[in-house]
């Protein structure tokens, strides 16, 4: 079972005569024209990994049956570049965006390896009737140990193992949890990187997730994207009294830096 922790490492490599020579010692600089950045790691079986450079999509690659991927981008100048990566599972659900600001050096291949996306997550209900069940599902690496967390008025966690094709599904009983607002998320056991947080309510009725569009904090135009448009709507209400509910991401009746931080967490670009 896959148990590796998502600890990214970066190394600098020099391409000499077609061979890639990895070295951590950069004192002996070799005049090599090739400059590139390479990302490699694990997502989900046959997931699509998209790479954004300074917020603009530049390339996407498909992971193999084990979920492994590798992508190389050619660069030209010495600079600090912010790359963002996200994975889309075979059902079309996206991981959170992960940013990698990298110092790029001309003549070297900078290799960032050990990337590991948290599993994707979807729930079947936006509101669960008190005492009923919530189905949580998505994709991870195949046969991986996973841990689901529920946080709200009370906290609970459950463990499970994903199937061979990376899919997982768990039916969670809501009998012991009081009514109120909750979030659910998933991560690999012993890993710090969480999936998206998904909001749900324990209340009077069962409301399917497909019937609501208000599940992403700050998504005031309900396009399921968090980008500059949503940032601008939030910025308009920054410091103003009585903001609309959709911009007040933490429901404290004011728009401050915390609301922007929550928006930044959910950013899709």
């Amino acid at each position, binding site marked *: 079972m896959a148990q590796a922790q998502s600890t990214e490492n970066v190394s600098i490599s020099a391409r000499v005569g077609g061979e890639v020579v990895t070295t951590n010692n950069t004192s002996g600089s070799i005049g090599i024209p090739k400059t590139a950045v390479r990302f490699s790691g694990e997502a989900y079986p046959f997931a699509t990994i998209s790479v954004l450079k300074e917020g603009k999509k530049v390339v996407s690659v498909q992971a193999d049956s084990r979920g492994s991927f590798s992508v190389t981008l050619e660069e030209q100048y010495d600079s600090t570049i*912010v790359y963002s990566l996200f994975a889309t599972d075979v059902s079309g659900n996206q991981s*959170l965006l992960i940013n990698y600001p990298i110092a790029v050096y001309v003549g070297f291949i*900078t290799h960032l390896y050990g990337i590991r996306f948290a599993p994707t997550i979807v729930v079947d209900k936006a509101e669960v009737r008190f005492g009923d069940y919530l189905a949580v599902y998505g994709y991870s690496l195949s046969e991986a140990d996973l841990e689901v967390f529920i946080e709200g008025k009370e906290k609970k966690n459950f463990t499970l193992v994903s199937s061979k094709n990376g899919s997982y599904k768990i039916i969670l009983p809501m009998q012991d949890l009081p009514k109120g607002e909750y979030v659910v998320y998933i991560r690999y056991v012993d890993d710090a990187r969480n999936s998206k947080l998904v909001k749900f309510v324990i209340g009077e009725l069962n409301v399917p997730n497909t019937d609501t569009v208000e599940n992403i904090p700050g998504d*005031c135009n309900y396009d399921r994207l968090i980008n500059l448009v949503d940032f601008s709507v939030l*910025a308009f209400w920054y410091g103003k009294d009585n903001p609309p509910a959709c911009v007040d991401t933490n429901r404290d009746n004011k728009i401050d830096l915390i609301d*922007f931080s*929550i928006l930044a967490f959910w950013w899709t670009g």
Partner: protein
Amino acid sequence: MTKKHKKYKITSNGMKKFLFIFTILFFTLFFIEKADAASILVSPPSAIYTGDNFEVLISIDSDGVPINSVDITLNYDENLMSFSGYKSENTITPLWLVSPHESNGSILMSGIIPGGVSGLYDPRNKGLSPIPLVKLLFSATKDGNAKLSFIERKILKNDGKGTELLHDSKNVNLEIRKSITGDGNFDSQENVFDKNSPEPFAITFLESSLFSRTPSMIIFDARDAGSGIKYYQIKIGFQDWQNAQSPQPVSKSIFSRDVVVRAYDFYSNFQDASIRIPGFLSFKLLLIILAVLVFSGILGLKLLKYRA
């Protein structure tokens, strides 16, 4: 024997006390270290002389914790140095909510890093390097000991909850020396930092929906590599220029209007962008209405003539 036993007892008590104090000290130091492991760093140049234009890098060592929002107010000595802009080159430029600007001897800035960052991946350094946030530009106007001190600072984790990251910050003393060459007279009019216009930028019109409390507005985000964007001005139709900021509410009128936004950098170089805001009535619709009116008029006249 008794003596020996007594001696042993004393040693044991002493050892216990030592272990107790050591344990408390260890845990106290450990947790203090943990709480203050993250920090905001200010990196000025090593030597500054009067007349110098210099950069001060503001970076954040988040101790590997992903962060996505910052709010910083930095105080500086107005008598010895002047603020002349900011640079984004080789930094992780935040999406500014409040771009770096001066107000009564303080520099205020606030912004978000969408998706968050844990640090800079620099293959030449072991582990994660501090996050380079922004380079503030200053001019040394007078010799003396200047101070850069944090008045307010807030760093929020990228955890979906906006949790504050505990951190420390160190104020920095800058020694501004008299220019050796003797030509250190500061000329505030001289533009040495930035002679280029801001980069071309786009304006997006966000139309308000019928029941939305957020008005129709335009959004824009200009970038300037040399000294940063200082302010914006807007010209709507035939109206005069006025100060603006993104998002800028722009109401729809009967007819479409041209809106020009001008982005100025800290050295008064500017770049224009424009957009046509659609009106409630389009030219086509207006022609149709006119045609209907004319036709009705003619028909009316004919009817009147017929009755007469």
